[in-house]
């Protein structure tokens, strides 16, 4: 078993108005970033997972997203990173 650093991003579903994203987008336009569009604000969650493989670590976190990290009524999730955690070298 190895340890993996896994990141998940949870955002509001596309069908749902993201008021926060819209407000931030307007602010970006005002300060000089008119080419930025469709801003969505989400949550970034990272964690260490002990698993036999990167695929297993990813599946494990996807299950955690379904059970707790995202609410399927309003949110989508995606696992964005799965990286092995470097072993600590002692001595």
């Amino acid at each position, binding site marked *: 078993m190895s340890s993996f650093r896994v990141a998940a991003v949870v955002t509001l579903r596309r069908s749902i108005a993201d008021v926060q994203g819209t*407000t931030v987008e307007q602010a970006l336009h005002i300060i000089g970033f008119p080419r930025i569009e469709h801003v969505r604000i989400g949550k970034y969650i990272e964690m260490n997972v002990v698993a036999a493989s990167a695929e297993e670590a990813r599946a494990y976190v996807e299950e955690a997203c379904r059970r707790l990290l995202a*609410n399927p009524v309003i949110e989508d999730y995606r696992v964005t990173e799965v990286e092995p955690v470097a072993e600590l070298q002692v001595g």
Partner: protein
Amino acid sequence: MKFGVIVFPGSNCDWDAYWAVRSALGEDVAFVWHKEETLPADLDCLILPGGFSYGDYLRSGAIARFSPIMNAVIRFARAGGLIMGICNGFQILCEIGLLPGAFLRNRCLRFLCCTVFVRVERSDTPFTNTLRSGAVLRIPIAHGEGNYYVPPDMLRGLEQHGQVLFRYCDAQGRVTESANPNGSVANIAGVVNREGNVLGLMPHPERACDPLLGNADGLSIFQAIRHFCSAERPILMVT
């Protein structure tokens, strides 16, 4: 009759609910710590109070739904026990799936603390049986994530089955966009499950139970619950 009030870490309307039942309504009430695994026997109505359970971390109610007491809450609901989730309690009931829907941040992105009007949509339920359909209540709200959302198909189901019990309205009972404080779909302020024994509402009736504090409209909901429980043959809403 006997009420129970669940206390989660971060509940802050538990004493208000306790007081509303004990002093304003004059009925028996007991606190239930969230780490308990059983509810008191002979309970008629269980209240999930407002507050910020688990700091509202991740999403309002998302972590409280895994509290040890919640299995007993589900069993109580399935056995037909009355449950009223107020504000954060409503959010927890949605997260655990006893009620449909979920909550978004208020449309205005601000925490709202004010008094609003809600219209009673039907009077043949355990929670409104002493009120007339169309009655307007003045009830306080206090929430940052009170923007109730259900997808369009689920909303049709809610309306078809008469599950919307309270809607934000103006003082005359008109359900208008400007009377909607937080952007909730269809001005929904409170819903019941299909069976009609589980209610969730964002407004705080327990904060409006004493004329000395300027408003006792909320007491009518507690009185309706007592009336329902004291009826010889309680009849659950059939939808």
